[in-house]
């Protein structure tokens, strides 16, 4: 089962986790990642822009890829768009699997890949004004690592 959603509305990560956990008694392992707006450096809010249609396709491709690579029962990707205040949730990634390694690795894979493969753009707001967030080289490396592993496996 795959759940892919892009929405402006806030969501309840705990409720999502519990829904995943309850869905399948054949599943020993549930892993999740959630990202939220980080305060602390004067940041007051974020604005998330995306490419409607293309985003959903990209997220579906990422979740499908994860389901092929690992033995998963569920893969969930939920991403918000629009304006968010500090402490609000941005993204939820979840996976359930019979075994823990699959669930944990699939979640890491999906968030790493989302960062570089899904057309989202973040704008930060603080007292000085606003600015578009640049991709971090670290994110490119994290995503590249998964692809490299696949090449190694198929070599």
């Amino acid at each position: 089962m795959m759940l892919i959603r892009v929405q402006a509305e806030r969501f309840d990560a705990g409720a999502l986790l519990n829904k995943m956990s309850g869905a399948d008694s054949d599943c020993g392992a549930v892993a999740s990642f959630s990202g939220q707006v980080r305060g602390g450096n004067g940041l007051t809010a974020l604005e998330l822009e995306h490419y409607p249609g293309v985003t959903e396709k990209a997220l579906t491709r990422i979740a499908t890829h994860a389901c092929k690579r690992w033995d998963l029962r569920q893969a969930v990707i939920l991403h918000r768009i629009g304006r968010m205040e500090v402490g609000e949730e941005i993204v939820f990634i979840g996976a359930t699997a019979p075994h823990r390694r699959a669930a944990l690795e699939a979640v890491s894979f999906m968030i790493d890949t989302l960062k570089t493969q899904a057309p989202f753009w973040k704008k930060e707001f603080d007292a000085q004004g606003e600015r578009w967030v640049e991709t971090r080289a670290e994110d490119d490396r994290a995503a590249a690592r998964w692809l490299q592993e696949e090449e190694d496996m198929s070599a």
Partner: protein
Amino acid sequence: MSITVRYFAALRERMGTAEEVIDAPAGTAAELVAWLVARDDQADALAHPSTRLIVNDEIVSREHALSSGDVIAFCPPFSGG
């Protein structure tokens, strides 16, 4: 030929519009970029190697040949998650 051009995020702000329909000569995506830069200096950011091109919902290279009716989107590096 008629091409729908979309700009996202920083490129949208730079170009001053989210979408325009233009009548451009036939050619590749790279040739379209050259045509847009010739029309307006501001468009030079479209030529930056970090700008990704999406044609009809698929990421393409700059050598991709455009057809009339195509939708091409210019995307700064993604920063979601």
